[in-house]
């Protein structure tokens, strides 16, 4: 029987944009299909087992909490997360969690360390301005896939500007909204099974298709039983409308 084992990193601290909505989507959509679902919380100071989980989730937090978690990630979880990513487990970072996937977050004279899972760094805007609003991006998740790209809709609210290294691919192209830096036209990052994005709101309730893609990838399944997604499709359409698409 298929099983999705999720490791939620710091769910009590890194949850500012209703990150539990993302976990709830994964849980229900597994349960409704008879896929076993288990979630394990990993808090400050707790070691994680890279082989015990199929998907690692890292959400966003308030500045103070994000700093605490960044230090803890580097001290107690970095090697395990690298090992997990190397063996193909999904690592999904959203908003603040996305920033921590990179090398560092520069805050003027100060700096928060990152996991270095992907080649990117984030810089707080000099004037403290934030990039806020509804956002829609165009993505192609499966290499070699034909047909039109898919669209992810969400909400972004970040003071950092994220810059990808030369060899790094974004998660998608910005259709509406700001994205990584407000000027690059790119959003998020994708390197194999490591995915980062600024899209919250939360992300998966607005994009049920992406929740299913994550379940499929994390469980190594080629297809999933279909669900009645009339409400989910309407919510996706609403989020796209809010972003100014169509």
């Amino acid at each position, binding site marked *: 029987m298929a099983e999705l084992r999720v490791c939620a990193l710091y769910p009590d601290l890194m949850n500012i944009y*209703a990150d539990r*909505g993302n976990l709830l989507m994964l849980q229900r959509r597994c349960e409704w299909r008879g896929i076993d679902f288990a979630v394990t919380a990993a808090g400050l100071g707790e070691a994680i087992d890279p082989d015990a989980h199929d998907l690692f989730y890292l959400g966003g937090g308030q500045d103070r909490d994000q700093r605490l978690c960044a230090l803890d990630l580097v001290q107690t979880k970095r090697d395990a997360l690298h090992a997990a990513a190397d063996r193909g487990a999904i690592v999904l970072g959203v908003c603040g969690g996305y920033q921590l996937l990179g090398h560092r977050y520069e805050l003027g004279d100060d700096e928060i360390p990152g996991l270095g899972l992907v080649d990117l760094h984030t810089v707080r805007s000099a004037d403290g301005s934030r990039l806020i609003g509804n956002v829609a991006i165009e993505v192609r998740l499966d290499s070699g896939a034909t047909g039109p790209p898919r669209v992810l809709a969400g*909400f972004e609210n970040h003071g950092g500007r994220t810059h990808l290294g030369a060899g790094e691919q974004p998660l998608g192209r910005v259709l509406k909204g700001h994205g990584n830096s407000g000027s690059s036209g790119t959003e998020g990052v994708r390197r194999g099974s490591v995915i980062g994005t600024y899209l919250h*709101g939360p992300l998966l309730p607005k994009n049920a298709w992406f929740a299913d893609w994550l379940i499929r990838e994390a469980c190594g399944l080629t297809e999933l039983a279909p669900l*009645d997604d009339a409400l*989910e499709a*309407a919510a996706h359409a*609403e*989020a796209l409308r809010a972003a100014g698409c169509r």
Partner: protein
Amino acid sequence: MMLAGKIALARAAGTLSRRAGRGGTSLPGKLLIRIEPRAIARLSARLRDGSAVISATNGKTTTAAMVAAILEGGGARLVHNRAGANMAGGVTTALLDAARGSGIDGSAGLFEVDEFWLDRVVPELAPRALLLSNLFRDQLDRYGELETIADRWAAAVAAAPGTQLVLNADDPLVADLGRDRANVTYFGVQDDGVALSGMSHASDSKHCRRCGAPYVYDAVYMGHLGRYHCPNGDGPRPEPDVWASAITLDGTRGAAFDLHLGADHRRVALPLPGLYNVYNAVGAAALARALGADLTSIVSGLAATQAAFGRAETVLVGDRELAILLVKNPAGANEVLRTLALDPGELDVLAVLNDRTADGHDVSWIWDADFELLADRVRRVTCSGARAAELAVRLKYAGVPPERLYVVPALEAGLDAALADGAGRLVAMPTYTAMLDLRALLVARGTAAGSFR
């Protein structure tokens, strides 16, 4: 130009705007501030008994209505931004509406102030008393992080050294503002009968403001409000001077509790539901006390409080009773949901989610609210508003059977669909702009504003 001339100009602009159908609750005030930046200070200085200010994430309007009922029962004539226009423009509009020549028609000011505007409005008003009630996660796209607001509040408090502070002892972020200050009245709840089994998901400020250690809670009453202490001995919860005990909650209809003022206490019958309104009432009592009201007028004022605009208002629509319970952030929604769950039987609900500026463009908060409380309690939920479908998805994933969910984005059609199916009480849970639209709809249909009770 003299102040009187500037006031006349601002008033005329307001009249024009209202005639043009553009509303205008805060427009005259905004204009007056532009031509007279010290308008709030100059006009409020005319109030013989000074001003009182109320701020909080949740409960500002209702708490102010309670304080008004108490003070007006004692003969005060209040200048009060009753309709909830609570930024500088709204406060100024209330003041200029009351201005008469070089005087003012009112003995005291009572102002609810938006939590983000507090540090700008308080220095102008130099209030006699300032009630700060709670800080919850709310509209992050507008307000930013909770800690940012706490810092701004600290600045506002520091800028008003002569002001009597009235602080919620049960909210660590708020109670901490009174540290190192003599003139503070604390209020709170002392009743483990209403304690929750644990902290809800959406709770914030769980860590000591001083040392960063997680607070230890002996009782959680609501969100992060409760009896807490820092394990390192920093910032213990202050002992409240005014508190509620022996609380009984009567579903969506009302609540009762023993109100303690020092050594005295009296039973209060509150016509508003839920523990959140008990908190509002205790805060109102503490503020009224700080302004000199006695226990008898406090108790009768609280018992006479009418529901504020869209906050637990009940109205008859045809043969159905419609209760309107404003929801706007996770903590407030959780208390409304907790209160609904106290009602017996299956509920009919009209839930309306908008994403305009006053609602917050970011609707992620609905995923922080515990809609799970309704999972097996609803007969039918009609979802309306600009983000009706996302709300339906939230309810579906909370465990409400999808066949009980109806998505009707247009509010009027949603209201009709909700009214047409079922009998008895219908509970509306609108966000802020949805509440305004819903009330306007009901008034247009002849459910006159005066019939709200």
